[in-house]
């Protein structure tokens, strides 16, 4: 499913809603396992990422390696997830005695991540890591201006992840418009000049 037509987009979103409703992503073990898998996928495809970024931007491999920095996000998320996701107690006032109060973080649902072309791998993957850590399903729309990287992201994600959980939709402005016509629970948009 590397290339999606605009007509398929409602189906992709609905599939994610259904997946989210199964509740699987609420489990911390699920999120940790998916983050660990994503880390493995990135490690296994490092050379492909460097080559794609070089093809898109003529970047040296050294600079291309910054794209792999999303790994440090994964490492941090795996280390900290339990503490981030824990309910946080707050003090309750005397007139509410006896009671306890807390803040429970919960996933939003289905997120849309629209990535730019300038750091085309990193800027698609870092918000994806954040969305997975928080227990969301996500649709990633890589930039069509960096076609090699876009294709690579679509390929490695579709090979390794359930499309109800993470989907990659490739395309240009029409695809963006078709995506934005759908309802999401968060849109993460990193805009750069086209």
């Amino acid at each position: 499913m590397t290339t999606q037509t605009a007509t398929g987009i409602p189906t992709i979103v609905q599939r994610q809603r259904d997946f989210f409703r199964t509740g699987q992503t609420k489990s911390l073990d699920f999120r940790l396992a998916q983050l660990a898998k994503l880390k493995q996928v990135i490690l296994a495809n490092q050379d492909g990422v460097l080559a794609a970024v070089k093809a898109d931007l003529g970047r040296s491999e050294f600079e291309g390696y910054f794209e792999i920095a999303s790994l440090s996000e994964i490492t941090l998320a795996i280390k900290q997830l339990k503490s981030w996701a824990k309910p946080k107690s707050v003090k309750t006032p005397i007139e509410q005695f006896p009671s306890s109060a807390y803040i429970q973080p919960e996933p939003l649902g289905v997120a849309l991540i629209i990535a730019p072309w300038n750091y085309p791998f990193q800027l698609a993957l870092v918000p994806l890591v954040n969305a997975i850590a928080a227990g969301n399903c996500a649709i990633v729309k890589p930039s069509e201006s960096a076609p090699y990287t876009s294709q690579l992201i679509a390929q490695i994600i579709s090979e390794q992840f359930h499309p109800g959980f993470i989907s990659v939709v490739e395309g240009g402005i029409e695809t963006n418009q078709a995506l934005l016509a759908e309802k999401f629970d968060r849109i993460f948009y990193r805009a750069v000049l086209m």
Partner: protein
Amino acid sequence: MEAAAKHLTPVTLELGGKSPCLVDRECDLNLAAKRIVWGKFLNAGQTCVAPDYLMVPKAIKAESIEQIGNAVREFYGADPRLSPDYARIINDRQFARLVGLLDEGGTEAEIVIGGEIDAAQRYIAPTVIDRVSPHSKIMTDEIFGPILPILEYEDLSEAIAFIQSRPKPLALYFFSTNRDNQTRVIQEISFGGGCINDTISHIIYPALPFGGVGESGMGSYHGKAGFDTFSHRKSIMHKLPFPDLPLRFPPFNNKLNLLKWVASNLFIR
């Protein structure tokens, strides 16, 4: 935004803008030049948090330009076109836009470093432009490419006032060894995030939230901030069945006095 508003979808927007790089009279100019050249010409300037323009004290402007020229040659050689470490512009549209900007510094603008282009490769040399007009297109549009305009200033207050008069930038970099000046710049100017004595590196460390303010973006991500961005914070009050104080329930009769007493003795303290 409009599409998102239709569905009331929360939006995190990472934008950009003109991120200033401010050089203080008191600084290690040689070090500053290297770190500025690195951050500016990394990915041929196509970095959201790249220094967009440079502000230097008039008295050290000539030396700053010389040091920047040295750093460019040291990093990319005499002809950066031949350097395997220097990137190209993403597409023809961006290339044409940037080439256009080379001539948009105002009537007095002068290219002091670089300026060479090669359309076939979408190559634009690391370029520094002096004597730009603050009202020229190159000083109002986000550059997002390897062109660095330089503005000079007399004293730090003037530079701070200039930056404050513009949209809040995504990043700001301040090169200074003076503690008081460092504090002033951080406290007096609003911007997304930035560095003292470096460029770019504040976004590399995931424990620091990354995002803009005002025109440069809304919301933030990386690490815990990213977790929060994709989470809802659900508030829960968990009460026990006993005791069930009757004060809040009607009929209220004379309970108002009691409520006033409770409020003044418990809530307002």
